[in-house]
């Protein structure tokens, strides 16, 4: 048995490329803390990220990390989980990666309900390309490619996920680490596809949605006494209402996973003996005689 792990066991030697004060630091430390508290071993964690500032996170979590192409973290991560269901699989990326270039995969990964976790680090801007509007930027947001203000309506990613049949929907704020740790732990332990969206301020390009702004504009809805996270309609209402941004585990439901529905064997595919079925292969040729 390995000794108790600490967040340090999930640290890499690679220095961070993020700007000082970036919200993504909060996400990373919450993630390390959650992994340690869950007793995960770095060797059993597959961590897949997209492209962009937030996509760099895979370089900073000691694990089997995959930093692929823009927008495709989810299909990569989904397949890693199916290939080896013993792994803890986490995908992470920004609002552009998940809700713009990767939006097509987002809804289908939700529908499949593979047992994995997706963390969307939402800073409402494109940071690494130096500050353009993102799918979650407010209408009117002035940026280099929308000098007269963003003409588009911001995307409500969690409501979209719920509409697509999500079984675990949560939102955190990177300045509230305790809640984020609890949320990530619950997401990883959830049997099925879990989404944790984190409001993760960009201190360099987004001068509107700042830490101070978020502090004024978020509300932990689950703290309300009558909030029932298994009530889909209530979750929708919470996500769609005007006003404060709802935080917390907004929706949770037990539903058979892709693995359940396809009867995926308990033995990870990656551990199969590929030479095991020779005689069965030969017998298959009878169908072609």
């Amino acid at each position, binding site marked *: 048995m390995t000794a108790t792990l600490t967040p340090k066991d999930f640290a890499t030697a690679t220095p961070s490329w993020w700007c000082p004060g970036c919200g993504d630091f909060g996400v990373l430390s919450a993630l390390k803390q959650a992994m340690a508290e869950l007793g995960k071993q770095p060797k059993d964690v597959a961590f897949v990220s997209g492209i962009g500032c937030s996509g760099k996170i895979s370089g900073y979590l000691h694990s*089997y990390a995959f*930093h692929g192409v823009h927008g495709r973290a989810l299909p990569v991560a989904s397949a890693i989980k199916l*290939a080896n269901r013993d792994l803890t699989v986490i995908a992470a990326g920004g609002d552009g990666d998940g809700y713009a270039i990767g939006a097509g995969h987002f809804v289908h990964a939700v529908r499949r309900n593979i047992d994995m976790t997706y963390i969307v680090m939402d800073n409402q801007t494109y940071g690494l390309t130096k500050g353009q509007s993102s799918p979650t930027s407010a209408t009117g947001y002035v940026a280099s490619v929308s000098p007269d203000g963003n003409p588009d309506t911001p995307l409500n990613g969690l409501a979209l996920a719920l509409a697509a049949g999500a079984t675990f929907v949560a939102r955190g704020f990177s300045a509230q680490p305790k809640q984020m740790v609890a949320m990530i732990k619950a997401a990883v332990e959830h049997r099925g596809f879990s989404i944790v969206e984190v409001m993760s301020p960009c201190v360099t390009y987004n001068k509107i949605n700042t830490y101070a702004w978020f502090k004024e504009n978020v509300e932990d809805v689950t703290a309300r006494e009558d909030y029932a996270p298994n009530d889909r309609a209530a979750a929708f209402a919470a996500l769609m209402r005007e006003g404060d941004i709802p935080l917390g585990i907004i929706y949770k439901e037990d539903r058979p996973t892709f693995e359940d529905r396809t009867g995926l064997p308990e033995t990870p*595919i990656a551990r199969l003996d590929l030479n095991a079925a020779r005689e069965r292969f030969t017998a298959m040729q009878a169908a072609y005689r």
Partner: protein
Amino acid sequence: MILNSVEVMFGGQAGDGSLTTGDLIAGVFKRMGLEVYTYKDFPSRIRGGHTNYVIRASEHQNYGMADAVDALVAFDLEAVEAHIEEMRPGGFVVFDNTSETIPDDLRRDDVTWYEIPLAKIAKEQLGLELVRNTISLGVLGALIGMDPEIIRNDVRGVYQRKGEKVVDLNMRAIEAGESYVLEHFADRPSGYGLVAGDDGDRLIMMGNDAIAYGALVAGCRFMAGYPITPATDVLEWMSKQLPKFGGVVVQAEDELAAITMTLGAAFAGVRAMTATSGPGQALMTEAIGLAGVLEIPVVVIECARTGPSTGMPTKTEQSNLNHLIYSGHGEIPRVVLAPGTVHESFEIAVTAFNLAEKYQVPVFILTEQALCQSKATLAPLDVEAVEIDRGKLIDSGEVVFGEYKRFAFTEDGVSPRVIPGVPGGMHLAPGSEHNDAGVITENPRNRARMMEKRMGKLVSMRDDLPNAVLHGIADADIAIVGYGANRGPIAEAVQRLAAGGVLTRFLQLRTLWPFPEDDIRAFVRGAQHVFVVENNYTGQLMQLIRAVVGPLDALHGVRKYDGRPFRPIEIIDAVLETAGLTLRRAQGDIAQGDAAAEVV
């Protein structure tokens, strides 16, 4: 009279059952001991639109269509209009004249016409118009001497699960067809006669099925794909079979997901593949580059159809060669393999997985509609001979963290590959340039070294690549180069030219990338003419050859880009015309479709 060799075409509207009947006929020919090749020419729609199914049967396997159609079974006038020009003089047409008549301008007098009210007989005598297909089987059988017992057994086999009533109806339909011929036409009037031999221990299999089967046997246990003609067969086959062997198939939301899922599964240590066609291949381009830089072994089946854009989705072409070789930004090592027969489709699938893992590169299998959706008879496939070589894979035990380097520089460019779950192997696999440990860096020396490491694998792998196959006479003056589905018509042309006194050599390429430069150089040496036969407009293969041998006056392109495969006569004519030769014996003296028997 042509003995034991026939090309039958079934033509009608899509959805009217001619594909089922075509499969039945192919099975009957096989059980009569003949070698069979089929070609499906169907429209990109489910119901309606002209469709035809060509079944060629002969004593020797030709892997392609003959010069002309011997027997056309036309369920409507459109089938006659579309194909009367393809009929061999002396051939015959079975035409359903229930509601249409043959106009005089289509009524060629060098073919025999059997006008039979198939639909009417079906409806009035048997009560179901749909069985006209089976009636036509009886008609055809009586006309060309198909074994009546085999026909009955096969039809029973196909309809058995629908119950005895359906079987009985179809039996009566065969009978009705046979009787009609006996009552209305003189005994065996068509001029064709088949002789039943021994079926022996043989298979009849479609190219796509052979690829999928080869993949399964090779250890592929994960497939992600998005339905696309003509590659969907592979996805369907794997969906049925992989779960039985502990694997899984995912129907992806698009090809971007299909290829990145394939990468994910392979990264996790599973032999993984996807299958697609041109439009899907285009979407996969970026992720193929990622596979190259992350040194992830993936196998991509490209079942080529006509492009660009939607093109003609159900028609054949070889216009994607450049795409497979060059697509993508940046430079990666990649392999492109092309089977030329159904048997090779199986073998190359196995080879593809071994190459992919041994060299940690993306491997494409390039096949075309004319091969991958065609059936052919073949000897049983030797599963016992299949060897799985996973290369430098570390999927158990442990490695020492800090010492282990996923992208370590090695002699052959291949680094030991650890998979998630192995203690000590944790690393970052980044699409950004990285050092041997996977740490992102833009250091110029590292960059140059990494490029050399990755690209060097193209050299290391040379000895493991499928060799080119030499057909014909090795020192003949006339040389022909081709690949894929053209292996059949070219090899047949070579044999028939030889029978007519014109000697040629044919190099069938099976590895298209890394381009077999040495083979090409050696092959063209001393040739007076080099013909490059391919199904595209720009001569993609010829350009690759020219890059190796330089500009040669003797280099000639033989190209077809109408969506249909070559018939051997088209290649024979091109060779003779360009080389200014004539056959010592007239073309008509050479038995079509049975060339091997004529070679002396």
